[in-house]
C-alpha cells in the first residue's frame, strides 16, 4: 500500500479462535495497519467454502485473506 492512488479492498475471513483474537490483540496494542480490510468472522477457517472466495472476488475484492 505504498501508492496512495491505489486503494484495494480486501475481504478477510477470520477464525474466531486465533486470527480474530489476534486482530483484537493488535487493537489492544494499538498497532496501526492500512484500513483496507473488511472482515467476516467464522468459527474456523474450515468453514470457508471455496465459493465464498469466488463470490468475494466477484464482489470486487482485490484480495481475499483467510486467517486461521
Amino acid at each position, binding site marked *: 500500500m505504498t501508492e496512495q492512488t491505489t486503494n484495494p*479492498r480486501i475481504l478477510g475471513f477470520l477464525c474466531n479462535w486465533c486470527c480474530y483474537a489476534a486482530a483484537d490483540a493488535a487493537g489492544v496494542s*494499538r498497532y496501526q495497519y492500512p*484500513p483496507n480490510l473488511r472482515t467476516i468472522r467464522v468459527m474456523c477457517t474450515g*468453514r470457508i467454502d471455496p465459493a465464498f472466495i469466488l463470490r468475494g472476488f466477484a464482489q470486487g475484492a482485490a484480495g481475499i485473506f483467510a486467517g486461521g
Partner: protein
Amino acid sequence: MEAGRSPNIEILSNADFLGLEGKPGAFTAKVRLRPRYINADKCTACGLCTRYCPRHLVDDYNEGLAITRPIHIDYPQAVPASYFIDPRACLHLQHGTCQICVPVCRSKAIDFGQQPEERALQVGAVIMSPGFGRISEETLAKFGFGKHPDVVTSIEFERLLNPSGPFKGEVRCISDKRHPHRIAFIQCVGSRDLGCDNGYCSSVCCMYAIKEAMVAKEHDPEVEITIYYMDMRTQGKDFDAARRRAEEQFGIKFVRARVADVMPWNDQLRLTYATLSGSHHFEPFDMVVLSVGLEAPKDAKGLASTAGFELNQYDFCKTSTFAPLATTRPGVLVAGAFHGPKDIPESVTQSSAAAGLAAGLLRTQRGQGTVTKSYPAEQNPGEEVRIGVFVCHCGINIGGVVDVPGVAKYAGGMEDVVYYTESLYSCSQDAQEAIKEKIRQHNLNRVVVAACSPRTHEPLFQETLKDAGLNRCLFEMVNIRDQCSWVHANEPEAATAKSRDLVRMAVAKARHIKPLPEQTVPVTPKALVLGGGVAGMTAALNLAEQGFESFLIEKSGQLGGNLLKLDRTLQGDKAADLLKELSAAVKKHKLITVLTNSELAEVNGFVGNFTSMVRTANGKKASEQSISHGVIIIATGGREHVPARVLGKEPVASKKIVTQQALEQQLAGGKAKAPASVVMVQCAGSRGDDLAYCSKVCCNHAVKNALRIKALDPASQVVVLYREMRTYGFAEDLYRQAREQGVIFIPYATDRMPEISAKGSKVRIDFYDPILQDQVTMEPELLALSVGIVPEGTKELSKLLKIPVNADDFYLEAHVKLRPVELPVSGVYVCGLAHSPKPIEETIVQAQAAAAKAAIPLVKGHVEVEPTVSHVDQEICIGCSLCTSLCPYQAIQMVQLENKQRRAQTIVASCKGCGICASHCPTFAISMGGFTDQQISSQIEAFGREENRND
C-alpha cells in the same frame, strides 16, 4: 478468562487473608479488601486516567523494565477489567494533592473515599494456590545481577520477548538498547544450590530456558545462544523432542558446565565456567539470562500460621505421597507451585484434582450456594424482520476516531432497520436497560451492536436479549473498536468508511439470522473406568465420594496394576499399604462395581450417552454385558519396557543383568541382602534406543534402589552411569543423599556409550569416565538396567475410541497445557501411565483430576450445546459420508432412515461448530448455526455494495 463472567465466582482482588476458623464443611474465612479507589462497576477500562496521571511508577508487570502510572491496569486483558490506583505512588493519597483523574474520568468511577472492608466468608473447604516466590537478589548477585544491566532474569527475558513487553517484543540489551548477538543462559540459579538453602530442583527452568532460547532465535535467527547446565531435565511428555529440536533445528548450543562468575568485559560480559573434566574456560556474551528457580511464596510462613497447616523444610506446603493435595489441616487443600515447583499442566491438573476433592468433601452441600438465573419466555420473532442498530462511542475510544452519529444514521437508512441510536458506553448497565426498553418499544427482533469485540462482549448482549425475551442468536456484533478505531487512529475518514462497511455487512447478515434452539443432551450419571491400577482405583473412588456410580474394568484377575510390583516409593512409603487401602475401599464402596478379567469390546455413543460391551473371561468361557454410562476414564496404565536395543546394541543376556524393577523386588523384605557391587545403567532402551522419549521415573528409581542397597550394606559399591540425572523437584534431596552415602554417579555421552558384555557367569561393563578422563572396566556382581516405561494397549483402545495417540503411543490430550486430562473426544478422560510415564504421586493427582473433570457432565445432568453447531438437511443429503471422514471431532455419524437410506446426522454434543463439513458438502445439505451459507453470502454481497459514500 471465563472466571470473570461466572455468576458463581466472586473475585475478591486486592484482598488479604486474615484468618480461618471452624472445621471442614463449616469454615469461616476472614479477608480484608483494600480499596481500589475506583468503582469497578463504573470503570470502562478506557485508559484515559493513565494518560493524564502525572506520576511515574515502575511497572511490576513488565518486571520493572517499563514505566507505568499510579492509576493503571496491570495488562489490557486483566480481570477484573478495572483500573486501580496504587496508593504507594498516588499524589492525592500520599500528599492530598492532584486529583486530576477525577474530572478526566467520564464515567465518574474514581472514588477516593473508599475504605478497606473486612468480610467473613462461610466456606466448606479451602484451596491454597498462592503460587511461588522469587529467588532473592542476593543469590542472583553471584552472577552479576544488579551490577550489570545486561544480566537479566529469565522472567525479565520473557517480558523482553513478549510483544506487549517493554521493547514490543524486540530483544535489546538493557544497557545501550543494542540487539545482542550472543546470549548465554545459566541454569539452576537459586535451585539445586545449598548456598541459598534451595536444595531442590525447580523442575521448570530447563523447559522455559529452551522455550525462551527458541523464541529468541525466531525473533533473530542470527543470534547465538548457549545454555550452560548441570543436567537438562526435560523429562515431561514430549519435552525431550523439543529439546532435540532446539539443538538440531535452532542450533542452540548446550554446554554441561558450572558457571563460576560473570564479569563486565569491554561492553560485553565474560563468563567463566568449568566443565566436567575440571578445565576452565572463558566466553564473551552480550546478554546473560539467569534461569531462576521457583521458591516458596514469600509469605508462606504467615499463610501457614494464619490457615493452620504445616510447611516442609523449604517452606512449600507439607503433603504426603499418597495424599498429595491434602495439607496437614483437614478441609484445606493445596494446588499449584505451592505444593512444590511445577509447570503449568501439572498445576492445572492439581487444581482440577483439588476441586474434585473439595467437591467430594462437600457432597451434601452441592448446589446449595450456586446462583442460577431465570429468563422470561422466549417470543416468536414473527415473519417481519425488525432490526435495531446500536452504535457505541466507547467514550472516546471509538467516538474519538469514527464519526459515530454518521455511522448510526447510515445504518438507519438500511433495509429492515427500524431503529438506530448511539450510546456512550453500550456495555454499561444502564445501556443494557435501554436496549431492553427499545426492543419492547419498537418490537425489535434482530439486534446489531457496533462496539468492541464479540469475543469479549457478545455474551453480555446475548444475555440482555434473553432478558428481553428474545432468542440470543438474534444478535450480531460489529467490531469497530479493536479492529477499527484503535488500529486506524490516525485515519478518521477511512475508519469511518470501514465502520460503515462493517455495519452494512452485519445488517445484511442480521436480516437472515434465525432463532436457534438451546439444545441439551441428557447424561447417564455413571462412569466407565478402564484399568484397575492406582489411577483407575483413585478415579473411581473420587467419583464415588462425589456420589457417582462407576464400573471399574480390570484386564487381569486382581486390582493393583504396577503397585503389585513395587516395594516402596522414593520417599519410603510402602506400596502395599496404598494397595491395601485403595482396593479395600474400592471393593467396599456401594457405588463401584469391579469387573476383573474384563476388557472393553465395543463402544458406541457420545458424551453423556455411551453404551459399552464389556467382555468378562470366566475360566475358558467369556460372557458379555452391555453397560450404559455418561463418561469414560482411561487408566489403562503402562509396564516396564523390554528393550530390543540397549545402548545402541543388541541386549546382552545374562543372569547378572536385571531391570530396576527386578532389583527392587530382590531388595524388598526384611531378609534381603545387598549385592557387593552394582552398576546401574540409565536410559538403557530409552531416549534414543527403541524408545525416543524419557520415562521420567527411572532416575528416581535408580536413586531409590541405590539408597536401599546402601541401607542394607553401606560397604556395597554402587555406580550409576547416567546421561542426565532427572531427579526433579524434592527428589533432588535424595540424589544428594545418595552421593553423600558414597553412591558414585558417572555421566556418559551418547557418542561414547558404555559397552556391556558377558562371559560365562561374569558380566562386564566398559565405559569412559569424563572426570578421570580414562576408560574404566568393571565386573560387578549385578548390572541393573533402567529400561523405561511403555503404555499398555493404547494402540488397540485408541482405534476403539477414535482417540489419537502421540508418536510414542501415549494418548494425546485435548490441550497440552490447559486441558491436560481431557481427550479430544468429549466425555473421555485420561490419567496415569496411559498419558505419559510418571511417578505414583503424579498419577494419583492426575486420577483425581480426571475424576473431577469427568464429574462435571455428571453433576450437570445434561450437556449443553452451543447453537453454532452443524445441522444436516436429510432431504438434501445423498449419504456420501464425506463429512464423517472429514470431521475432526467424530461429530457426524451415518444413520439409516426408515426407508433404508443412509444419511449423515450431527452428534450435537460432540460438534464444535468448525464448519468443515458444511464447506465440503457437495450438495449443500449441511448448514452451520449462526454461520449459514446464506448469512455469509449476504455479508459478502454487502461487502461489494459500497454504496453512497457521500454522506
